[in-house]
Every structure is written in C-alpha cells, then in structure tokens.
C-alpha cells in the first residue's frame, strides 16, 4: 500500500515541552487511523505535522506530491459572518453543487443551512466544521475530536457520514476514547498512541 504521508523518527517540542519523540508511521490511502492518548501528548500536533502546519524539530516527513488535505479543526475555525452552507461551499470543488446542503442535512442541520454560523450552538458548529471537512476534495482527511459536543444520535449520523467518505483517503481521527472507534470495527483501523 503506497503511503501518502510518512513520518520518519519525528520529534517536536514547544519550548521545554516535548510533545512527540522518535515517532514513525506511514499513513496510506484507504486507511482510518485513530490517534489516541492522554491530553498534551501531541495528538493535534501530529495532525498539524502531517498537513505541514508545523515543521518537525527532529526527523523528516515525506508527502506524496500534489496531496490535498482537509481538516476538521478542534476549534471549528468557521467564518462567523457566513452561513453554514456558505462555510461548506467555500471548500467545495464545484461551488454550484448541492453538496453543502446535502451534507448539512445528513448531519441534522437541514434547517440551519442558511443561518449564520455565529448564531449556531457549539454542537451545530461542530457539525458544520465536519461537513466542511467532508465536502473538500482531499487525499488526507484530518479529524480532530470531530464528535465533541454532539449527542448520541448526532454522533451516529456523523460516524455514518464519515464512513461513506473513507474510500480513497488516508483518514486520521483524534479520538477521546475507544468508544469512537466502535462504529468502524469493520474497517482497516490503525490506532496510534
């Protein structure tokens, strides 16, 4: 299996604090990798290293050429003045498609598509951020605690939707606990701690 992103003995520190040490892993297409571990261990840093938002202090990172990334950031990072649908449409390859509305509807936000995200609740914003991540054409999909703030029904819907978008991608999922892995038991799941 060809790796899209390969980390070789990567180390990263912020000042005195070391968050990753001698970390090696290859992220291949059609794999779903759960990144687990206690707070502050460097899970988010790993995602940032993978997509190039951070540079390693030690080791090296290889990326296949022309890689496209998509990211559901931990803090949503939505454009506050835009509607939920406009936020999703921003990253769509085809701006005229109905994909934003479809994804939002699948995540239970059909009635909120035209609403400015600044008026949405935390859980609703989280789902908009997830819809945006799934709408972007990508080879590597990074999901940083995508289910935070969602109730059980919304979590189930979100997992179903992510499962439909796994094909052809390397997916990295920063998870709170093992519960989030359960819906994906039938998939090629890798756990990194």
């Amino acid at each position: 299996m060809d790796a899209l992103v390969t980390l070789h003995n990567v180390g990263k520190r912020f000042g005195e604090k070391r968050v990753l040490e001698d970390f090696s892993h290859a992220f291949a297409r059609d794999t779903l990798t759960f990144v687990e571990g206690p707070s502050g261990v460097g899970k988010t840093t790993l995602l940032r290293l993978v997509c190039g938002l951070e540079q390693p202090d030690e080791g090296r990172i290889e990326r296949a050429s022309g890689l496209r990334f998509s990211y559901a950031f931990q803090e949503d990072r939505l454009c506050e003045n835009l509607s939920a649908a406009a936020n999703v449409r921003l990253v769509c390859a085809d701006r005229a498609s109905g994909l934003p509305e479809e994804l939002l509807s699948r995540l239970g936000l059909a009635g909120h598509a035209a609403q400015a995200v600044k008026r949405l609740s935390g859980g609703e914003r989280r789902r908009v951020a997830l819809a945006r991540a799934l709408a972007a054409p990508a080879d590597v999909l990074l999901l940083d605690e995508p289910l935070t703030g969602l109730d059980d029904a919304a979590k189930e819907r979100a997992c179903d939707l992510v499962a439909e978008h796994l094909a052809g991608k390397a997916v990295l999922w920063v998870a709170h606990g093992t519960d989030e892995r359960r819906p994906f038991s039938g998939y090629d799941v890798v756990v990194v701690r």
Partner: protein
Amino acid sequence: MDEHARSHSGVSVRGLIGRAWPILVWIAVWALAARMLAQPVLLPSPLQTLARLAALAQEGEFWRSIVRSLGGIAVGFALACVLGVALAAASYASTAVRRLLAPIVGAIKAAPVASFIILVLVWVSSRDLSRVISFLMGFPIVYTNVLEALLATDERMLEMAQVFGLSTTARIRSIYLSQVLPAFEAACSLALGFCWKAGIAAEVIGLPDHTIGDHLHDAKIYLDTPALFAWTVAIIVLSVAIERAVRALISRAVDAIEAHA
C-alpha cells in the same frame, strides 16, 4: 438591526426631548449672553444668526459655495479611502512597503494641519487645496485602521485557508472582509469629520473663490459676525448631515458586501 429599529421607535417623544433639551439650554444661554452684551458685532443672538442664515440661503452663491466646498472635500475623502485601503493591503502583504510608508504616515499624522496647508499652497492652486488637505487628513486614519485590522487577522483562520487551499479571492471574501469592514466603517466615520474641518480650514487660509472658507474669511474681514455665525451653523448642520449620510451609505455597502461574501 432589531436593536437599531427599537432605538428609532424609542426616539419618538421621550427620546427627542432627551436629545433636544441640552441643545435648547445652550441656545438659551447664547441668547441670554447676546442680550446682556447687546453688541451683535461681538455676539449676535440666535435669532439674528438664523435670520442671516435664512437670507444667505436665498442667494445662489450660498448653495454654490456649499457644493464647491463639499465637492472638493468629498474628492479628497474618497481618495483617502481608496488609497488608504489599497496601501494598507499592500503594507499587510509586504513588510518592506509597511516600513517604507511608516515615516510618511507618521509625518502626516504628527504635522500640524496649518503647516500642510501653507506647504501645499506652494505646490498646488488654492482651488485644489481642500482636496489635498482633506486627503492628507483622511488617508492616515483609513490606512492605519485598516492595516491594524488586517494585522489582527486570526492566524487560525489563515491556517484553515492554507489547509483547504483557498484562493486569494476566497480568502478575501471569507476572512479578510469580515475583519476589515468594521474597522473601515469606523475609520470612515472618524476621517470624514477630520476631512470636513481641515478642508474648511484650508479654504479659510487658501481663499479659493466661491467656497465656504472664502465666505468665512469675508465675514471676518468685514466684521459681519452674524454672517460668520450663520456660516458656522451651516457648517455644523452640513457636518452632521454628511456624517449620517455617509455612515448610512457605508453601512449599506458593508451589509451588501457581507451578504454577497
């Protein structure tokens, strides 16, 4: 918007009285002082001023002067807005441009307006003076406010744009516009007042024909104090009216831009 509407409906009677009484008190103080002094050449009464203003308003020259002064200042203000935003964007994109412009903007901010007026009179005709001066007053305000807003752009949103590979146009519409528009709106409101006052001051010194400044100067020379007061009242009324009109215009433009972003 709802709050705005509420404040408008609330203005009805109580709001109007609340706003009007301090003005009426000061007009009464003015009237009393004028009556006690009894020398219109030093202090005309409000009624004398109003009568002079009414007489002036019947002359074509009054309106011609207003249009000419307004036109010159408006051109300077518009130029300040356009160049202020364009150069702020260039300064945000390039540290070299920012460093290059910093001394100029600093000098314009620090120099007294009278120095500029006299200096500019050496270079341009008095007809163009108010345009140049109102530009010089407005430009640093727009430039500084817009640049500060751009520099305060949320780094996390820029990372988001980088990861998703958003185009420059998409970045401007989704991130920078919402960042800059409130600052631009505030800067325009502030700059407009400065442009208007400095533009009239420039006319008083440069004396271009058929302008408000020219008439203010004439009133002073001929000790026509009621005319001086009448022109000053006209300037204040125009200032308030223009500020409201421009603020409403910019606010509408901002809403339209945001709606299409």
